[in-house]
């Protein structure tokens, strides 16, 4: 089970003087059960890329395979692909529209043509997964707080039981706790349900803390594709393309420059704490 991109290119307004290249020779593989962070500055091609993954946009050249089968091949069902690869757009709460929370979440599975029992079962399951309990079911989606609305919107996509879940900046505009709640739930879905998750984010701290692999886009090209530690080791290059490393990575580098010998490949607060204590402990040992 995997999504494979082979030399994918996408040009906006192809064949006109306004032609711009949004994706430039992108090849990559998304394997089953991965938790991937996708980063890049505004306009780097992230959103264009994720819309290719469920066939909302069609590559101008190159091929995309879902479990080995070309999604552009004859007889391939795009409708089927879209229910397997769920896409949660930025500010998904703007897409809530039904009279109550429960009906809204039922919308996706209803369109998949499932039975009423199955639809309701899935809606309940999805809402439970995002931590929305029954007391909310009959509320209007517009009465909820920002974080709650967003979780309902994510449940709407989960109810379609996708195998791959792609989220475009799911934490933008949320307070720190709301952010941790949503990301924590994604980790749980990934761990417990084996869901493949692709997280588009502007927060390097979040990406460092949660994902096992980072893909970095710049000018439509995939410039890095590696573990968070390996990617953030290139923090100077990341800065040049409008990104950054987590603050703790800078702290570690600054410490080393100032003569405090510490590991510089730390990317979370816990790692930095451990590294600093480790340096100090080693010194104690030598002293003894």
């Amino acid at each position: 089970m995997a999504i494979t991109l082979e030399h994918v290119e996408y040009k906006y307004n192809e064949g006109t003087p306004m032609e711009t290249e949004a994706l430039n020779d992108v090849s990559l593989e998304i394997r089953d059960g991965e938790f991937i962070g996708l980063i890049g500055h505004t306009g780097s091609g992230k959103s264009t890329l994720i819309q290719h993954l469920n066939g909302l946009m069609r590559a101008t050249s190159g091929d995309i395979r879902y479990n080995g089968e070309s999604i552009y091949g004859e007889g391939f069902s795009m409708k089927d692909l879209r229910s397997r690869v769920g896409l949660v757009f930025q500010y998904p709460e703007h897409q809530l529209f039904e009279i109550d929370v429960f009906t809204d979440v039922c919308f996706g599975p209803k369109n998949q043509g499932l039975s009423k029992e199955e639809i309701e079962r899935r809606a309940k399951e999805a809402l439970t997964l995002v931590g929305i309990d029954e007391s909310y079911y009959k509320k209007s989606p517009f009465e909820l707080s920002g974080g709650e609305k967003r979780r309902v919107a994510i449940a709407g996509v989960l109810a379609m039981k996708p195998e791959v879940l792609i989220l475009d900046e799911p934490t933008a505009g949320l307070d720190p706790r709301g952010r941790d709640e949503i990301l924590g739930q994604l980790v749980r879905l990934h761990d417990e349900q084996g869901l493949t998750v692709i997280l588009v984010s502007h927060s390097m701290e979040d990406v460092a803390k949660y994902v096992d692999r980072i893909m970095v886009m710049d000018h439509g090209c995939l410039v890095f594709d590696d573990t968070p530690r390996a990617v953030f080791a290139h923090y100077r290059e990341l800065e040049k393309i409008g990104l950054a490393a987590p603050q703790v990575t800078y702290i570690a580098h600054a410490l080393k420059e100032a003569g405090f010998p510490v590991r510089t490949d730390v990317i979370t607060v816990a790692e930095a704490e451990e590294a600093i204590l480790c340096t100090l402990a080693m010194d104690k040992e030598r002293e003894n």
Partner: protein
Amino acid sequence: MGIIKAKNLIYNYIKRDEEEKVEEVSEAVRDVSLDIEEGQFVAVLGHNGSGKSTLAKHMNALLLPSEGTIWIGGKDTKDDDALWEIRQTAGMVFQNPDNQIIASVVEEDVGFGPENMGVPTDEIWQRVDECLKAVGMTAYRKSSPNRLSGGQKQRVAIAGVMAMEPKCIVLDEPTAMLDPNGRKEVIRTVRELNQKKGITVILITHYMEEVIHADRIYVMDEGEIAMEGTPQEIFSRVEKLKSLRLDVPQVTELAYELRKKGLSLSPCILDIETFVAELTDIWKKRTGSSTAKAAAAGPASAE
């Protein structure tokens, strides 16, 4: 009295049923009193739904208090005749740059505010020049706003507010939708306006790193001011902030954790420079003494 002063401010959102009967009243702001001095950089923190934005909308009379009073530049916002003056004193910048840019050319967008105020044409252009320069967008004055990045659009929006020459700018999560570079650009611009032009800044944000230079921080919870103080005072209370669904900058958290482990660091470190200086100090003291000991022990153990 400061440029913005609120006394026992209360605001209720009232939900009515089809027959206009009151169904539910929710108190978004409860009994807030504050006094903001001219020229200050003030930050407002608080979780989603804590009442920050509702409070901000009172600062240029977009909302009027249900009870209590708020004065902007000494004018009561309930006074209809003072409305224009109030909105010129306090300008507002919102979260989504796409919702606040209206013209098809950058310079015309910046000129829109003063034009509506009836400023003479020559002066409008003079203000547009100045404001675009202040936000570092002069090179884009003839561009179309929809070709700009998020950070650039937000800076144009700030220039548009500045062109009305307000004494005070209220920014409601201006960086929530931006990438790291865009965020830096906007915050740098806002700090410069505050420092160079003396404009009072009220910044509402969820990014803790953006407020460490503020003169004063208010933390809101359940419509009330839950904490108030300098960044040092606020961020030294890590547990309290977390209980209010907030966070501290990574450097502050790291220092806090190390201090708990017994390292002699200052109680509240907000920037990398201080942290590095203190930790290297500790290191030098230790290694300094151990080298001295090694030397005293003689050449046999000099390894």
